[in-house]
């Protein structure tokens, strides 16, 4: 089996706020205050193989963006390790480290906040390859012109500033900037979420063309299941910091195993499906400051039973390449039916 291009092994990312002075003093008097810790990503395993397009979906606050940043190497993990071509990121030094940094590039949702408004397109795209010695200073203009042409912009725009472009054009500048350092992996964090449907289709087509042309690998983070279904080879569903299900898009949409995935797919508004009745799942995503015990989804889950409240479900393979983390996997169909109505028979 080939080694993954990038792999997260038991990766956790916690954000905590230290106690301030007043709280420390209060603790001296026995207030018993503790640091507040958000478990944004909680022991996640995810491997992305060369040439693959992996979709990472989930609702806001589920930790998908944090995981993307940790895997792109721009944010350190607080537990576990990220491996680049089999080697832990923390062990990379010098040239290896620099090469890895260049090979993993990110494209963000809002290009206006990631493009320096006081720089021209030429410098925005050309600075990194020049600094890293990929192109010489006098070749920079040609290099950048070739890139912007490839992403569908007119090379005569090189001396313009970001505010002179529309949203879709700015996103193309962001893509050209990521491509300028010849990356292997693109981490796209909600890269098409802010675009109108027609522009979104243009950008998605561009992503797919670039994949063919440059042999790119994608980690595609999105809340839009429709987009992810269309372009990804594998879809990973996250809920409150954990991976709950992973499968190929066809398998996931035809045969979702986890009750959360089932709800997400059912609630997806669609033009073709004129479903007039909504059957929303109850409740909201709990605060990651105080995640529920056991399975994180159990307070909202229509099929939850006693075990879900105490024991964390592990990812198990249901079918080839289809894993889900749900205690229902351990039950037979008959048991599942009895569980829904009464106490387990055994």
């Amino acid at each position, binding site marked *: 089996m080939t080694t993954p291009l990038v792999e997260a092994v038991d990766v956790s990312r916690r954000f905590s706020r230290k106690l301030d002075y007043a709280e420390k003093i209060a603790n001296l008097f026995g207030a018993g205050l503790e640091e507040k810790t958000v478990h944004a990503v909680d022991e996640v395993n995810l491997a992305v193989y060369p040439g693959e397009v992996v979709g990472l979906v989930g*609702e*806001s606050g589920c930790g998908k963006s944090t995981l993307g940043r940790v895997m792109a190497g721009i944010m350190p993990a607080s537990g576990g390790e990220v491996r680049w071509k089999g080697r832990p990121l923390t062990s990379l030094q010098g040239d290896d480290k620099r090469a890895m940094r260049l090979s993993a590039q990110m494209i963000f949702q809002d290009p206006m906040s990631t493009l320096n408004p006081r720089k021209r397109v030429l410098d925005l795209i050309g600075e990194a390859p020049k600094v890293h010695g990929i192109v010489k200073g006098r070749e920079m203009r040609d290099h950048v012109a070739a890139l912007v042409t490839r992403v569908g912009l007119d090379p005569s725009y090189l001396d313009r500033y970001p505010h002179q472009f*529309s*949203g*879709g054009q700015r996103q193309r500048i962001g893509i050209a900037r990521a491509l300028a350092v010849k990356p292997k992996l693109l981490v796209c964090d909600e890269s098409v979420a802010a675009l*109108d*449907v*027609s*522009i*979104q*289709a*243009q950008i*998605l*087509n561009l992503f*797919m063309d670039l994949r063919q042309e440059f042999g790119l690998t994608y980690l595609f983070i999105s*809340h839009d*299941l*429709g*987009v992810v*279904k*269309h*372009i990804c080879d594998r879809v990973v569903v996250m809920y409150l910091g954990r991976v709950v299900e992973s499968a190929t*898009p*066809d398998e996931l949409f035809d045969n979702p195993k986890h009750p959360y995935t089932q*709800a*997400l797919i059912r*609630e*997806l*508004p*669609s*033009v*073709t*499906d*004129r*479903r*007039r009745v*909504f*059957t*929303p*799942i109850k409740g*909201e*995503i709990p605060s990651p400051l105080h995640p529920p015990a056991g399975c994180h989804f159990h307070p909202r889950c229509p099929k939850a039973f006693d075990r879900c409240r105490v024991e964390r479900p592990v990812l198990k393979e249901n079918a080839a390449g289809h894993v889900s983390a749900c205690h229902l996997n351990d039950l037979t169909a008959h048991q599942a039916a009895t569980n829904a109505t009464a106490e387990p028979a055994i």
Partner: protein
Amino acid sequence: MTPVLEVKNLSTHFMTRRGILKAVDDVSFTVGQREIVGLVGESGSGKSITGFSILGLVDPPGRVVSGQILFNGEDLLTKSPTAMRAIRGKRIAMIFQDPMMTLNPVLSVATQMIETVQAHDRVSRTEARARARDALGLVGIPSPEERLDSYPHQFSGGMRQRVAIAIALLHRPDLIIADEPTTALDVTIQSQILFEIKRLAAEFGMALIWISHDLGVVAALADRIMVMYAGRIVEAGQVDGVLTEPRHPYTSGLLSAVPAAVPRGEPLRPIPGFAPSPLSRPSGCAFRDRCARATDVCATEPMLEIAAGREFRCFHPHLWSAA
């Protein structure tokens, strides 16, 4: 039955330094009683400005330059500012995309809701509070009595939007204009809000204008749909008809640009080109530069055609065998 709202030849222009920006250009439509109308279009198509124009919320340099807005038969454009204040919030309410912008962050929800009640009805504070509590309960906020004294930041995004909807419902308006109210929400939360809105609109017999860029949401919610492009309504009709057999090439272009329209892995079919700048729209049909069906005749203004409950502005509409 008289329609709740009848908009006739509405034009809202912005007098900018670089010229006249025709945000809304000769738009006419009606909203019947208890009807849910979806208004869709891409950003910059003028759908939000249409909503603002109805409520008289267009700020300079923008101005409603012509047309009539008949609300229960009365022209809102001839009303004095005082008269409009009495209508706004009482008989027509609006829900915005970002509830954090509608809610005052330094006032508790109770204060804001009581203020809304007392702005239009002479009732005691106790009674106003009771009405506020009932409204919160209606939109599905658990333990409304306790939540009344919370501040907006103590609510999640979905709950905040419910509070905004509750405020809109306080006076049981005849018409609610909702401007992208679920765009910022997650799929499961959006589904909950759509469910509540649909139930409440039916329960109180309210008419609803639902402004959105998401055809899927409108398909699930609305009775009728209006598609806007470059300041004009290019197609309108029953949701089923417009979405299954679109007549205008722009509508069909929008429908085939969504990922679900093509088999997985195949290239998507975006509409070529970009929407024209609202300052320099081409003469005639504004869509003709991007349209595969365009011919020389499209350089002149297409008139509104009305056929079998469907309205569209196009010289070369799609023909469907049933039509």
